[in-house]
């Protein structure tokens, strides 16, 4: 009985110890989540095709640490983003802001699509006209066709 009691006590103690550790962890999870969501929007400048969240570069680790620190200081996501852009330029953002210099970047593909569709429509219309022209028969041919059709119809009626 005494042994059971002891076991119970130690188990409970263990649980409370875990619970105590879990409290600060919870806040860290929040910080970590926000850090990841911010750093996924940012490019690692050392290995440019990786996000800051996924990069193992030394600088990326430093910048993640910086972001974590700023989150703890109560900075908003926008403030942290501005901090990064102020130091590394718009290039760090995977979603560059809409500006005069990035206009082509944002709307270039759309312009190409519009140009492509316009060309296609123009081509189709011209082709349609050409086909219609080619299909038009001279009066002589027209008479021939009518004669043949009539003949076929007559022979069809009296086999």
């Amino acid at each position, binding site marked *: 009985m005494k042994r059971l009691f002891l076991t119970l006590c130690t188990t409970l103690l263990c649980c409370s110890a875990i619970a105590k550790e879990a409290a600060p962890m919870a806040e860290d999870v929040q910080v970590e989540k926000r850090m990841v969501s911010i750093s996924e929007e940012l490019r690692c*400048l050392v290995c440019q095709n990786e996000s800051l969240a996924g990069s193992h570069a030394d600088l990326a680790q*430093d*910048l993640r640490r*910086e972001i974590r620190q700023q989150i703890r200081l109560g900075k908003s996501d926008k403030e942290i983003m501005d901090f990064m*852009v*102020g130091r*590394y*330029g718009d290039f760090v953002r995977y979603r560059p802001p809409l500006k005069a210099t990035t206009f082509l970047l944002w709307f270039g593909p759309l312009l190409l699509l519009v140009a492509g569709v316009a060309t296609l429509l123009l081509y189709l219309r011209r082709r349609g006209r050409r086909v219609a022209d080619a299909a038009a028969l001279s009066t002589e041919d027209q008479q021939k066709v009518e004669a043949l059709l009539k003949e076929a119809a007559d022979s069809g009626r009296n086999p």
Partner: protein
Amino acid sequence: MTRFLVPLGIFIVLVAFLAIGLNLNPREVPSPLVGKPAPAFELPQLHKPDEKFAPREMQGKVWLLNVWASWCASCRQEHPLLVDLSESKIVPIYGLNYKDQREDALRWLKQLGDPYVMSISDAEGRTGIDYGVYGVPETYVIDKAGVIRYKQIGPVTREALDGKILPLVKELQK
């Protein structure tokens, strides 16, 4: 004939764009700090860790801030040029020793020569972040008012030095 000329024209334009794009160095990202005041810092000196250095001490002078580290291979490549430049006494070079071990840094300078008026230790790399450093070595040209006028990303080359950095320094020193 024209029906071939149009696609050919488009193809040539495409090739021209690709040729330009592929010949750009993707590591050279324009720094938003050019034209802005050099970020303030106060860091211990490499040789005298008890004494600090702050860029405001350089007010009224044109100077170069070169970010270097003993672990950085390209720094070795540009080093002889910096030593030459320091001997010519055209412009003072200050070194920002970035994320380095002090002993390693001192040994490096002893071995290869010390072109710096002073080196400053940025052991944590925190000042490096303020300066937007992402690939050591980097070199900043800072004018008399403490404004960054140019940033060289990667090693300083003879061409960059003669073509951009020195003419700019002379212009700013007037």
